[in-house]
């Protein structure tokens, strides 16, 4: 059977989650590989969430929030960026390719971009193959 990656997506309520909703109402088609967790702001992201997802066997993790300057809570996305970058540095130590973690800014009006992001990210993960930490 072909490899179907499992991707955990953390989406902020105001931009990326709303963008994903718009992708839905616009019927933008993308691969069914993401499992979404809604948080109020990407600033809520603790580095542990990403590590936990990989530890549980996620093949990819997406963190998506508002563009710089558009954060509903002023500066949450900047915090998210720092933390995601930090985890990204740690991943190779754990034997996980950096490309399995993606940070993306998607506004509430960018449904198409959301679909495109998921399509491209799923492709990337498919090329990388299953995560080395994936449970058999």
């Amino acid at each position, binding site marked *: 059977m072909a490899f179907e990656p499992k991707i955990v997506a953390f989406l902020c309520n105001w931009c990326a989650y709303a963008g994903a909703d718009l992708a*839905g109402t616009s019927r933008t088609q993308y691969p069914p590989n993401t*499992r979404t967790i809604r948080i*109020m702001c990407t*600033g*809520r992201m603790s580095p542990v*969430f990403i590590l936990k*997802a990989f530890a549980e066997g*996620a093949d990819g993790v997406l963190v998506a929030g508002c563009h710089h300057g558009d954060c509903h809570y002023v500066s949450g996305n900047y*915090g998210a960026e720092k933390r995601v970058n930090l985890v990204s540095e740690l991943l190779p130590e754990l034997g996980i390719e950096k490309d399995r973690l993606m940070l993306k800014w998607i506004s509430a009006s960018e449904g198409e971009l959301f679909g495109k992001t998921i399509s491209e990210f799923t492709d990337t993960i498919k090329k990388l193959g299953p995560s080395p930490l994936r*449970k058999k």
Partner: protein
Amino acid sequence: MAKEKPKSDVSAGKSAVKKAKADGEPKAESKVTDEQPRVGVFVCHCGTNIAGVVDVKDVAKYAGEKIRDVVYSTDSKYMCSEPGQKEIIEAIKEHDLNRIVVAACSPRMHEPTFRRAAQTAGINPYFVDMANIREHCSWVHIQEKEKATEKSKDLVRMSVARARLLEPQEKMKVAVKKSSLVIGAGIAGIQAALDLADMGYQVYLVEKQPTIGGKMAQLDKTFPTMDCAACILTPKMVDTSRHENIELITYAEIKDIKGFVGSFTVTVNKKPRYVLEDLCTGCMDCAEACPVEVPNEFDQGLGSRKAIYVPFPQAVPLIYTLDEDTCIGCGVCKNVCTIEAIDFNQKPEELTLEVGTIIVASGYNVFDPTRKPEYGYGKYENVVTGLEFERLINASGPTGGKLLRPSDGKEPRSIAFIQCVGSRDENTNLYCSRVCCMYAIKNARLYKEKHPECDIYIFYIDIRAFGKGYEEFYKITQEEYGVKFVKGRPSVVYEDEKTGGLILNVEDTMLGRKLEVGVDMLVLSVGMEPGSDTDSLGKMAGVSRGADGFLLEAHPKLRPVDTLVEGIYLAGTVQGPKDIPDTVAQASAAAGRASILMAKGEVEVDPIIAYSVPELCIGCRICERICPFGAITMVDRKAVMNEAKCKGCGLCAGGCPTGAARLRHFKDDQIFAQIHAALAED
């Protein structure tokens, strides 16, 4: 304590007992968090929106049989409908459910609906979680039915995992100040301010320009009734300035918006007019004496004004403004002002307003046609915009209402209008600006009334005459006035250097014929674009912009004047292009919506805010530093969150190294459970 029922009794699917017997008293919200979770899963068909792709019965069956703590699951046609909600309420009572998972649309759509249903049945509204299997699943995986069903099962499993750990929350109530800020005093802001003031609320109406009135004040007549814009607008402007409940703050800009629904603190920067507002009588002596003549923005630069000026004679307030950019500092105005109203030492003033609600009505910008260089605007003198044309035919305009060509001051004997300049165009804006068809038709008719011999062409893609009386107006202009409508978008415009006329190359797509049309004057029907302040105001207010750059309403159909920021509303073209009737209707709607909160005097807000566990707090102050709202202070070297200031973003929880800072309803264990469930069955 809930009764223990064997799971098999109430297993999955439609066969589960749906009919309730008891309609007894709703239980008190006494469920405590340490009791055994009894989760009910409700899978919605949404007609065929979900059920057409996802096997909803299979999802419900899976939830009932395979997911821990699910004691009841079912599917239903429309979960959000009255019968659907009733089904949930009855199931809660029947099966002693203490957690509810609704697999349906986006929680941004119906979470409040299902929370209310839970509350009606006697359980805490925050014991509800939604699995978004419509926007995030059935609608985006239309061709992959099996995989969409698998994904739905995963999403439901994640939702149940989270629901098990949800804690009860009590809604918080905050007081709403009975005052409102209206930003922008065009027709939208004026209407909203008057409505709110008439209801008895204190209104602060802030306008950037020296006068209120906005773009409408610049127009000549208005379609389809041919009322003159000034005749219907200026009385409203005067009413606004005289209303006891309206404080007019002109020549001022919003600098900052802080706070939240019910109590916003707004900082306004009032620019110096160098004229004392209380003293100036608008006598005009200063302007007559002023030696500096500059183009008047109100006339789109076609007429002139002095460095000390009012934009137009009916300006409200009728107070002169000294334009510091063009003043040469000669002091003549000060010498002639007998009441000594001129004060060169005036400084910008900062005002602080405390309001309960805000209406953003900051308007639009006219499309800049130099971005369509093929039409020659800015290069050929006799190419003007629709708004410039309004000023040229306006009795109070620079030519006294006589349309004269800019190049030679002669009356044109032929005029062409090009439609959709900056609208419905992949290179500029995709949207329709909604007013250009009608204003071009109206302007064509106005000129034809005076000059029946003049040839007028309107080059269009489609004529959109959708409003009340608009189609009739269009027909009459075409049939009785003889305005020629040509379906085709001109590709390029040249100037005839000898005459100053314009030559248009266009394909008449109805006849499939290439035409070359020569006219004396060309009018570009420019569309609407987001106003220059839209971005900064949106950011200050926390309201997002749509792909078109206009501010985004909370829901395009059901909440068209609300924003996602509670207490902030939109009126007029700041939300998207619209004509005067729609703008006025929306402004009254925004005033009505704002008044709901102020009439009640209090509003329930989400209790999703942060707190800190003192035993775990090590006093590192990271949270204090990253909180964007200054809601965290250190008391005895422990972080303490201020409930009123906290907006519930969870930055503190994300940054806390010990897990002391927590965000209610989005706690670590709840998110961990979702992560686990996303990747593994129990």
